């Protein structure tokens, strides 16, 4: 569980950016989270709320967009994992395991290199400012 320290980092970045733009309030925080990152969106949002209390971001809503893993293979294939296939084999497996199993190259079957899906990006924030800046 390291959501708390990640939430601290997000809070610092968001506040710095919001203040630089003379925000009165932060309404939304849009995050891009890789499917392979070990971060729980609900815990992250919970920690953020605790940290942001009393700040201009205290009522900010988290919008988390999940990013599928992308891969690059020696054979030249590059692409993202086909998410429609996740969870289809009916076995009792974790979602993370499903994604990792899907990291084989769909063209040649080799174990492909992970090029995306591990990130946690603060994509943008929606802020409110005075009418005249």
């Amino acid at each position: 569980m390291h959501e708390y320290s990640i939430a601290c980092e997000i809070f610092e970045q968001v506040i710095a950016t919001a203040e630089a733009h003379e925000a009165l309030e932060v309404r939304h925080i849009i995050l891009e989270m890789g499917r392979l990152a070990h971060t729980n969106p609900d815990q992250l949002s919970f920690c953020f709320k605790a940290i942001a209390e009393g700040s201009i971001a205290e009522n900010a809503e988290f919008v988390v967009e999940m990013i599928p893993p992308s891969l690059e293979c020696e054979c030249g294939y590059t692409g993202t994992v086909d998410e429609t296939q996740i969870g289809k084999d009916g076995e009792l497996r974790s979602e993370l395991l499903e994604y990792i199993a899907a990291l084989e190259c769909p063209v040649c079957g080799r174990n492909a290199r992970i090029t995306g899906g591990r990130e946690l990006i603060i994509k943008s924030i929606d802020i409110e400012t005075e009418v005249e800046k």
Partner: protein
Amino acid sequence: MLMHVIHMGHDVFKANDKIAEKNRKALDKHGVFSVNVMGAIGSGKTTLIEEAVRHLKEKYRTAVIAGDVIAEMDASRFRKLGVPTIPVNTGKECHLDAKLVEKALDEIDLENTDLLIIENVGNLICPVDFKLGEHLRAVVVSVTEGDDIILKHPMIFKTAELAVINKVDIAHAVDVDAEKMRDDILSLNPDVPVILTSKHDWDSLETWISFIELGLRRAQEAQRN
């Protein structure tokens, strides 16, 4: 009131990766080979590192970073071996990050170090997303964690460059098939070397130690060329 959308594009993990790259450069500059030893709680990380230090310290100037929630306990074990040891208390944190290692590197005489072993916090989840700047990512599990431990923690095995299954001498007693564990690791990461070890079996320890030495020698050769 006016609403604005402010684009940020700030990657939280990339901030750590950048410091990790800086650490790596500092290590490379001084020809230090570093191993990040990750693994489960009680899997035997400290014991395996002790064995490696004991047998490599005469040939290579060795230092240890001992990361733990309370790092002093393990650090005192390494200090007994007479090598420079930096304890890094993570407090409530479940992993080492590049910033903590950067601070620890300040306390190590890199100019007079060949090998740096970093013991991460006992955890198979959190250390995965935090690069430290290491040259070799090793993960240690033991049979006592049960043979489904691998598939429950796929990312750490998927991204490891060396996997160790420890305490195989008691596999029968805990009703675990170490070979199944090896197969599970290889199903996630077909190219990773997997070593089965027991602290009572010197040959197995020698394999673990030789692997570190091999990486170290390769790095030293690359440095010379």
